[in-house]
């Protein structure tokens, strides 16, 4: 964060190499290695990230690698990389597609907790596409994902942790890190992300207890098993936590199966449960439709 190029809304940023001009609208994110702004240029709205030159170069590579996934990228589309010059100093930045929507945890605030399961299905879709490109996400914190409104999809907005299979994961957050739970290595492989996805979902529903359990996988499994919301999919989450899935698609199929089964089984007739059950029927129907489309 040294020599940070600080800009305010209305400022114009001129690219040294392309000559393109970007007008800053507002800051939309600030991370360990850079600041992201919403900007407007000839292509319309876009996101601009200032970072040091090696991060810009590395993230540019990650973004372009993702685009090889059949036309629709699980991350933002890369537009261009450039430098801004100010007082003799060079400030590298890159421009990417601006993805609009709430981050996972913001999304959950407006929804019933059961939505966490739907989010997991979407997240597994995302991971499937990413793994198909030969990379893992690495850092599975909720702030790194956005739920896009139109197609109900999850896309990544921070690609700093994206790592090629077989290497050591570039960036991670302890809570979602398999190694921090003493549950395996930090090697970039699908099961690393699937472990993180299971923790992510558990933490979206039971934030505090999951944080407190960090490092103790058994305790995490107990939280999931005793959770009214997650109980139904506990077998799937547990398998992910024990690295038993090596493909996102297998986990997603088992999740849908588990979900469909639990929602059709008779529930106890307490009032609260009835409400929940009714919701679950809707969700089950939804899942079945979803399954139909996804498994086609």
């Amino acid at each position, binding site marked *: 964060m040294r020599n940070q190029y600080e800009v305010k809304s209305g400022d114009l940023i001129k690219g040294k*190499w392309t000559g393109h001009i970007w007008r800053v609208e507002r800051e939309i994110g600030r991370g360990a290695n850079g600041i992201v702004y919403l900007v407007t240029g000839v292509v319309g709205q876009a996101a601009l990230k200032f970072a040091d*030159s*090696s991060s*810009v*170069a*590395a993230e*540019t*590579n990650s973004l*372009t690698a993702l685009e090889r996934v059949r036309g629709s990228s699980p991350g933002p589309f890369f537009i*261009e*990389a*450039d*430098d801004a010059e100010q007082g003799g100093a*060079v400030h*590298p930045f*890159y421009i990417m597609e601006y993805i609009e929507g709430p981050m996972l945890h913001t999304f959950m605030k407006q929804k019933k907790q059961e939505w966490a399961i739907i989010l997991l299905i979407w997240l597994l879709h995302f991971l499937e596409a990413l793994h198909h490109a030969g990379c893992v996400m690495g850092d599975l914190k909720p702030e790194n994902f956005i739920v896009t409104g139109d197609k109900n999809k999850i896309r990544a907005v921070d690609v700093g942790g994206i790592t090629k299979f*077989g*290497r*050591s*994961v*570039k960036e*991670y957050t*302890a809570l979602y890190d398999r*190694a*921090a739970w003493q549950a395996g*290595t*930090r*090697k*970039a492989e699908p099961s690393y992300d699937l472990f993180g996805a299971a923790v992510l979902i558990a933490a979206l529903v039971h934030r505090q207890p999951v944080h407190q359990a960090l490092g103790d996988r058994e305790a995490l499994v107990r939280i999931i098993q005793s959770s009214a919301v997650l109980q139904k999919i506990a077998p799937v989450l547990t398998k992910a936590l024990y690295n038993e899935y090596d493909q996102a698609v297998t986990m997603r199929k088992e999740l849908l199966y588990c979900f469909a089964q639990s929602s059709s089984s008779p529930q106890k007739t307490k009032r609260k449960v009835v409400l929940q059950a009714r919701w679950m029927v809707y969700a089950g129907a939804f899942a079945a439709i979803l399954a139909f489309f996804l498994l086609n």
Partner: protein
Amino acid sequence: MNRGTMKQLLLLTDGCSNTGESPVDMAHFARRHGITVNVIGIIEENGSESGLDEVEAIARAGGGESRIVQAASLSETVVNVTRQAMTGTIYSIINEELRGILNKESSIESLPPKTRSEIAQKVEDISEESALELLVLTDMSASMKQKLPAVKEALYDLSVTMQSRIGPSSFSLWIFPGKYSAAEERIGWTNQAGKLAESFPHLVSGGITPTGPAMRQALSSFLEMDVYDEKSI
């Protein structure tokens, strides 16, 4: 010197050196011999950063990275610093080459972004695949007592990341002050990263902080085969 091997000394400390030669000079010496010196200054919760100017000065002289962190975020810092220093080392070699080819002021930023991305790809490959020799030198003076569990955890964490790399890594753990000398070796070079955390001692040693002399002694374990000679320092 083996060309493909990156050598790093990671110094973990919580305060100023108070005896013996300057650690900054020692860092300079290390750098001249192709060893990068990284320094992490550990502060108390809500503690001040005073007295830790030295941390940055040592890292600057040693061509490495420096961070000042609370014990709680030590783990991720240790991993990130080690990683960044590896890519930093490669980039500084590239910059040097560029200056040789182009002109004195050239750096990676004088190349167009597309070329930089291609270089970044190569740098990432090299730092993932090349061999790493990492010597961890830990301050065990009395004030470190509260922080030792965090240091141990950080070393465990580091070992996990290093074991996930493609390239071979070897480790050595030194602590200071030593019982009979400025520093003592706890674990000699090993490729079993797990040993770092396993054999981490729980007892602090004493009140003095001979950072400079400790670095001198620890560096000997990199250099014993070639140039280690007191006069050359």
